[in-house]
């Protein structure tokens, strides 16, 4: 008996020593396309509101409720059929949609749209939107905007009143303390709600696409997505990703992390330690040490999940499903489940115990 116990202990120790893969979340993905109700397979963004899920597609805004999709189009008042960004006002349940033709507010089924012609919105191409209290922050192709829904006043942020070198704002993440803009070619802008001051974070390598100083600042100037959670900023670029704690930067590149590609469309922080990344080569999760990647295999398209531990060892996990496509554009959470917007469908990752 003692012998058997010793063997078991040895086996266990051996497993640890030889790098048993860390436990990472496993999902069963259910995918939605036009075949089962989506208005378009090109899904730019996804938003979870309790039991409802909103999807911004190239051909309308869709909401999934009670196992059925309902779509809103320009004929319903949507500013444009292509919906690029979504944000929820958790207090009122209103959904704000950034589109290629303006900003829309969906409230109790009624849609009000704001454009550069009928309102103070600076530009009709709205890439990002974020709700903070009574303010709706917007990232447009001509700078940032803030709409105060109580007063109806618009405030515009551009090269004239911020350190923005380019005005092509691509993403925004607003909280009561800080607001971050991801700017295409101008790094990250930070607005301090208390002081009203703007700061700018740039890639210390400038516009050089080589990384000379890896953790000394933002990984690249072309910022595609920002997510500010628990006082931690997560920033995605087309050349890697960054985490900033207010003092130190930590950057992630495909060559030295579990990131499947540097080309990152979206990042969404779970908290200060964990985040999800949507790249052109799959969906990735980082738990603070280890990485998991979920995708159809680049080689044969079959469902694939790989885990990379802190030491860099990569292990495959057998899975039967994967997100609808590798080109990931949007991410949101529904409890332990995940919803993923891809270039060819919307995926619901159902967490497996």
């Amino acid at each position, binding site marked *: 008996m003692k012998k058997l116990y010793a063997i078991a202990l040895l086996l266990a120790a051996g497993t640890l020593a030889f790098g048993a893969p860390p436990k990472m979340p496993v999902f069963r993905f259910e995918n939605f396309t036009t075949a089962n109700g989506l208005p378009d397979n090109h899904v730019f963004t996804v938003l979870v509101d309790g039991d409802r899920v909103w999807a911004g597609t190239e051909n309308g805004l869709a909401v999934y409720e009670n196992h059925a999709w309902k779509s809103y189009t320009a004929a319903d008042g949507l500013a444009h059929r292509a919906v690029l960004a979504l944000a929820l006002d958790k207090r*009122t349940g209103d959904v704000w949609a950034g589109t290629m033709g303006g900003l829309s507010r969906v*409230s*109790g089924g*009624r849609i*009000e749209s704001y454009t550069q*012609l009928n309102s*103070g919105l600076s530009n009709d191409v709205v890439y990002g939107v974020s709700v903070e209290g009574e303010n709706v922050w917007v990232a447009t192709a001509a700078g940032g905007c803030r709409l105060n829904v109580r*007063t109806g006043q618009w405030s*515009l942020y*551009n090269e004239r009143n911020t350190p923005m070198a380019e005005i092509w704002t691509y993403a925004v993440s607003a909280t009561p303390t800080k607001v971050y803009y991801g700017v295409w070619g101008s790094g990250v802008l930070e607005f301090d709600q208390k002081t009203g001051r703007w700061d700018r974070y740039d890639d210390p390598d400038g516009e050089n696409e080589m990384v000379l100083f890896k953790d000394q600042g933002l990984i690249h100037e072309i910022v595609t997505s920002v997510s500010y959670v628990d006082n931690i900023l997560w920033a995605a670029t087309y050349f890697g990703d960054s985490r900033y704690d207010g003092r130190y930067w930590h950057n992630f590149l495909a060559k030295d992390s579990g990131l499947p590609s540097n080309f990152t469309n979206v990042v969404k922080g779970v908290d200060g330690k964990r985040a999800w990344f949507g790249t052109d080569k799959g969906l990735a999760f980082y738990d603070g040490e280890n990485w998991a990647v979920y995708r159809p295999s680049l080689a044969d398209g079959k469902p694939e999940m790989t885990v990379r531990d802190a030491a860099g060892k990569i292990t495959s996990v057998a899975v039967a499903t994967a997100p609808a496509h590798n080109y990931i554009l949007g991410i949101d959470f529904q409890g332990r489940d995940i919803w993923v917007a891809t270039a060819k469908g919307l995926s619901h990752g159902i967490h497996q115990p």
Partner: protein
Amino acid sequence: MSSRLQNAVGAVLAIMAAASIAVALWSDHTARAASDDGENYASPLEVLLSPDGARLYVLCEQSDEVRVLNAASYASIKNISVGRAPRGFSLSPDGKRLFVTNSWDDTLSVIDTAKLSVAATWPVSAEPSSVVEDRAGRRLYVANRISNDIAVLDAATGVEEKRLLAGRGASYLAISPDGSRIYATHIYPNPSPVRTGLENRMAPESEITEIDAARAVVVERIPLHSIAGVFHVAISGDGRLGAVAEYHPKNLVPLAHLEHGGAFAYTLTLFGADVGKTVEVSLDELERYASQPFGVAIAPDKSRIYVTCGGSEIVTVLDVVRLLRFIRGHKGPFTRDLSASANYVVARIPVGHNPRGLTLSRDGRRLFVANRLDDTISAIDTKTNLVTATVKLAGPTTVSAPRRGEQTFYTARYSFQGQIGCSSCHIDSTFDGLTWDLEPDGFGRDIVDNKMLEDIKDTEPYKWNGGNPDIPTECGPRTEKYFWRSETYDNLTLANLAVYVRSLPPRPNRWLQAGGESTPAQERGKAIFERDVDKFKKPIPELNRCSYCHSGPKGTSQKLFDVGTRKPTDNTGVLKAPMLTNIALTAPYLHDGSARTLEEIWTVFNPDDKHGRTNDLTKDELNDLIEYLRSR
């Protein structure tokens, strides 16, 4: 001078003399007409019974009070001063607190009904118009007319939790008997969601906003097609039938066709399980209209619906069994069928001037009606449908000229078949958010936006084309010729009406900061408004400066200009510069309402800088200009 001309001149002089005397008497700058001796009329707007039926609470809009009467003897118990121009009130479910929304000072008065005194006054939002408390006593809901939303407050502290988007001009609220739903209505139509270029020629759209009281979120918006002007909403005791009082304007055809039924249908929309889909039913009858429905009450046993009709000065009584039988037995729509109401309207009870709010006793036997413009309460026996008492509220004993003018403004008695009064389009002496085809010059010609009346004194000429040199002309011959198609005013009536219209003051501007201070954006916008050189240092010709045409304290030079907005269907492009007082409230804009927002005046309709030099402005600067205009 011919005798005809002498008579005409004499009539004009008489009008002007009467107007001058009345203006001299009129010095009180409140929202409504004051008495000859300066004492305010009570102007009862709403009534409520205490849960035990012993007290009658009367909301007095002009004297800024809640008056408490003994509901049996009608003896006065107490007058409680509240805020300015109270517009709505309701009791807490236990009857211990009475909440009052004060529309002109943006406050909520909380009255302790045991002490009959104001226990708290809370700041709320822009022009609070009604209030309800949820059944749990946890939250208050306040409908804000100017900010177009429903504020959700902590019922214990008055602290605002959030605001829910409502219809434009959110004004009236009701809670379902089980407390699960709150229904809100609004008096101006919602803006068109889609830009087609023909928004000003599309039928208006309104809604009943349905709120889940447990979560305090909007869960549904019940559409009211072709409706503009939705007032009180009532829910039956079993929760299966709802009714809203509303106007169904026919603004897309010339108003000159009044004799063809061309101005309004006055209707109820029914909703709830009893009717399934919403059903709109007419209150009008053949050759007589139920003008300007406002208050709605449903009998506790759901046998009757009572509707006050402010312009017709009646209470319309509908038999619910017959109404439901009619709806189920006939194919709609019923809106334009003037014979329909004979199937379900069982009485039209004459009451006082401009009846508004109404309330039923718990047993449904007694109905009380607030007659706003003669300071009375009508008590009606619902078995006989007869007025059993007309209770005169304490106050002025004479009827002043402005007060008579206000009565004329609100009544429909002068128009063909009692169809419309001034207030049909100028709701609560404001506007209606609609464009109208007024003149008999062919369908679709000379479409005009309906303008705000407040502060129009001394801004002549009137009409968009400046065709009327003064208010008596605007309100007299024009109105008689095109609108009433019926009885004309005598000289004194017209003079009184003109005095009343001239007396309408502007409401407080909600975009100025406390103390009337401007924001930095408003200051920057003011500089743009007043500039005489453009951004390229080129002088701006006088006619292209904002401040030239929109000069003076009210923002009008009172002159006519062509700002390049003439449409092929317009008879002229030369238009009077409209005043700017509270311009932020009065969308749509331009003479024909083709600009949905202030921004569109310049982003869409000013390609050649004829409507001011603006095309050199950046978006930030245009936003600043608009921030300034909103503060006017």
